[in-house]
C-alpha cells in the first residue's frame, strides 16, 4: 500500500493502461506540453510521445467528436475535459454519438471511450463553473458513469473505464486531486457498478458518492462521538447503480440519508430514494431524507457558497432526524 494523491492515482492508471495497450491515447486541452491543467497527465508526453498525448484547441465539441470517430475505427481514446462545466459544449457528441452509436449501428460500432475531468464545485468559481453533472449524465442509456471519491477508487475505476468497450464518464473532483489515500500496490482494478461500504454502523445509512464521500466520513466521525454509528455506502458508480448494496445496508439500519453534491430535483438521490422505497419499504422506520445543494445557481460570495453546499453539518442533522433525535 502506498499513500498517494488522487492526482497521482489517476496518473498511474493512465500510464499503466497506456503501457498495457498501445491503442489507448489521451487527448484534451493542455494535456501534453503543459502536463494537464491539474497535472494529471504529468510525464505522459515524455513517455508516450505526441502521437498518444495530444493537445487540442479549445474546441470541446470538436475533440470529443474526434474521440468518438477514433473509437469507431479501433482506438481507445481518453478525452480529458478541463472541467465538466466546459463539457456542456461537447454533450452532443457524448449523448448523441458516443452513447448511441452501438445501438443505432445495430451493434456494428462499440465506442470504447473515456470522457474524464473534474466535476462539481471547487471554491468560489461561481455559478457557471461549480456544477455537478452526475444526474444529467447518468440519465442517458448507453453511458456508464463512475464517481470515485478516493485515490484507490480513482485508480481502479479509471482503469476499468479504459478497459470497458463502452463509453464511460469519469467524474473527478478538483478538490479531490490533492487528497491522499492508500492505493494497493501493483494491479488494482475496481469493477464498474459495485458500491463500497466505506464505514460500518448499524443506526443509519448514508448513501453517497464522489467528493461527498469525504463529507459523509466527516459526518460519520462526528456522529460517532454521540454514539451514532452509520453505514457509509459509497456508490462509486452512479450508472449502473448497485441497488443490492444500498438495500443490504438499509435493511440493516432501517434509516437512510442520501447525500449528493448536485441539486435536488431529479438528482441522483431521487433515484436512490426510489430504489430504497421499492426494495426496503417494510424495513423503513423513517422517511428517507436527502442532503443536496440549495436550489439556486452556485453563489460566488464565500459565505453564500458555503450555505448552498451540502456539508457535514447538514448531513448530521439529517441523520438525527431519521433517527428521531432532536427536533
Amino acid at each position: 500500500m502506498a499513500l498517494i494523491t488522487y492526482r497521482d492515482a489517476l496518473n498511474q492508471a493512465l500510464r499503466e493502461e497506456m503501457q498495457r495497450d498501445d491503442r489507448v491515447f489521451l487527448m484534451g486541452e493542455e494535456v501534453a506540453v503543459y502536463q494537464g491543467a491539474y497535472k494529471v497527465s504529468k510525464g505522459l508526453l515524455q513517455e508516450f510521445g505526441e502521437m498518444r498525448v495530444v493537445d487540442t484547441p479549445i474546441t470541446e465539441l470538436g475533440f470529443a467528436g474526434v474521440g468518438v470517430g477514433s473509437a469507431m475505427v479501433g482506438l481507445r481514446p481518453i478525452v480529458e475535459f478541463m472541467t465538466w462545466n466546459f463539457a456542456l459544449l461537447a454533450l452532443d457528441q457524448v449523448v448523441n454519438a458516443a452513447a448511441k452509436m452501438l445501438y443505432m449501428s445495430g451493434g456494428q460500432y462499440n465506442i470504447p471511450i473515456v470522457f474524464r475531468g473534474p466535476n462539481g464545485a471547487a471554491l468560489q468559481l461561481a455559478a457557471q463553473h461549480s456544477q455537478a453533472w452526475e444526474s444529467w449524465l447518468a440519465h442517458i442509456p448507453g453511458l456508464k458513469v463512475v464517481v470515485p471519491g478516493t485515490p484507490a477508487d480513482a485508480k481502479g475505476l479509471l482503469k476499468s473505464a479504459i478497459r470497458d468497450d463502452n463509453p464511460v464518464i469519469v467524474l473527478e473532483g478538483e478538490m479531490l486531486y490533492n487528497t491522499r489515500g492508500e492505493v494497493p500496490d501493483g494491479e488494482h482494478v475496481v469493477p464498474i457498478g459495485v458500491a463500497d461500504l466505506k464505514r460500518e454502523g448499524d443506526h443509519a445509512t448514508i448513501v453517497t458518492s464522489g467528493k461527498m464521500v469525504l463529507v459523509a466520513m466527516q459526518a460519520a466521525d462526528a456522529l460517532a462521538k454521540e454514539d451514532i454509528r452509520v453505514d457509509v455506502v459509497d456508490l462509486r458508480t452512479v450508472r449502473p447503480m448497485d441497488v443490492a448494496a444500498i438495500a443490504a445496508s438499509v435493511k440493516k439500519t432501517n434509516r437512510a440519508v442520501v447525500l449528493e453534491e448536485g441539486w435536488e430535483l431529479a438528482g441522483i438521490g431521487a433515484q436512490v430514494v426510489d430504489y430504497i422505497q421499492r426494495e426496503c419499504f417494510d424495513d423503513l422506520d423513517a422517511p428517507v431524507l436527502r442532503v443536496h445543494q440549495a436550489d439556486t445557481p452556485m453563489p460566488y460570495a464565500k459565505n453564500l457558497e458555503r450555505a448552498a453546499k451540502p456539508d457535514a453539518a447538514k448531513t448530521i442533522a439529517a441523520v438525527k432526524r431519521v433517527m428521531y433525535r432532536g427536533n
Partner: protein
Amino acid sequence: MEALSPTMEEGRLVRWLKPEGASVANGDTLAEVETDKAIMELVARGDGVLRRQLVAEGATAPIGTLLGVIAAPNEDIAALVGGVAPVSASAAPNAPSPAPATATAVAPEAPAPMVVTTSEGDRVRSSPLARRLAAERGLDLHAIAGSGPNGRIVKRDLDTTVAPATPAAPVVAVPVTAGADYTDIALTQIRRTIARRLAESIGPVPTFYLTAELDVERLSEMRKAMAELGDDYKVSVNDIVLKATATALAQHPEVNAHWLGDRIRQFARVHLGVAVAIDEGLITPVVFDADKKRLRDIAREVRELATRAKARKLKPEEYTGSTFSVSNLGMFGIDQFTAIINPPEAGILAIGAVEAKPVVVGEAVVVRRRMRVTMSCDHRVIDGATGAKFLATLRRLIENPLLLVY
C-alpha cells in the same frame, strides 16, 4: 354507522346523547342505535367536539354511513360534510336538490367510517417497519404510544413495549368479521400473549410438531381394489391422503386457518396446497375446495397441476390462496419428516412412506402397512390439543377410507 352486531346491515339512530357542539372523549356514548338485535350504544372513537350530527333521530342508515363528525373546535370540516346529504327521519322539507334526502338515498360508494379527524382516531400512524414488527410480535399498535412526529409509532416504541398495555378502558376489540368464505376471530388477551411469548421463544413462526402413525391397511386394499377396476380408477396414496386431509379440515376450521398478526382467519372453504418438487426447488399448487371434490377429480387435478408445475407453466392464481398445505416425501422413501409452515397458513402436514411393519393388534404381532404423518403447527393459532383432535379425525378417515364416500 358501525356494525354493532355481526349480522347488522343497517341501524336506526334512536337518539343522540350528545348535542352538536358538545365536547366528547374517546369512549363516550354518542348515541343509541337499534340494530337487528338490540339497542346498542354508539361510542366515540376519538376526542374532540361533536361538530355535526348528520343523521336525524329515528332515521335508518346502512353500515358505513357517516353519522357525524368529531373534530377540533376550529377545524375545517367542510370537506367531510360537503358531499353528504343529511339523513332525516322523513323526506327533508324544502330540499333544493331534485332527489329528496331520505335515509335510503344515502348510499356512499365506499363505506365511510365515523370520521375522526384528530390523531386519536382508529388510524394509527406508524412506520412500515413498526407495522411489520408489530405483526411479527403480535403487538397491537393501538395500545402503543408513538414517539415520532405526529405520534408516529417507530421501531424504538416497540422495543420498549414488552407486553400489550393493559387498557384502562376496554380497548376497541378487533371485531369478529365474516366474509363469505371465512371468519375472522378477534384475539383474546390470552391468545395475544400466547402468540407474543411463543414467537419470542422460537422465532417468527412458533412451530411445534405432532406425529401420528396411521394404519393404512384398508387404504391400501381400497387402492388395490380400485386399480383392479381399470386404469380409470387408479389413484395414489397421496390422492387419498389429500382427500382425507381436506375432509378433516372441513371439520376443523380452527386448523384451516391463517395467522394475520392481529387476528386469526378461519376458512369455511378448504383450499389445499400440495407441495410439488420441481428442478428449481418447490412450488405449492392449490386444489381449491378440495373437500368438495371427488377423489377422482383430486387425483386428476393434482396430476395435471404437478405436470404443469414441473414445466413451470402454473399461473399465479394456481399456486396462491391455499388455506393449508400437504407435503409428501413418502415416494422418496422418507419415513417421517417435518415440513416448514408456509405463512400465513397455520399448519402443514408432512406425509411419510407407507411401510409394512410389525404391530400389535389385540394380543398378536401382525404385519400391517403403516404411514407416519407429522403436522407442523403454528402455536399462535393451533394448540397441542387442537392439532391432536384434527389428527384424530384424520386418522379415523385414513384408517376407514370408506368414510370418505359417506
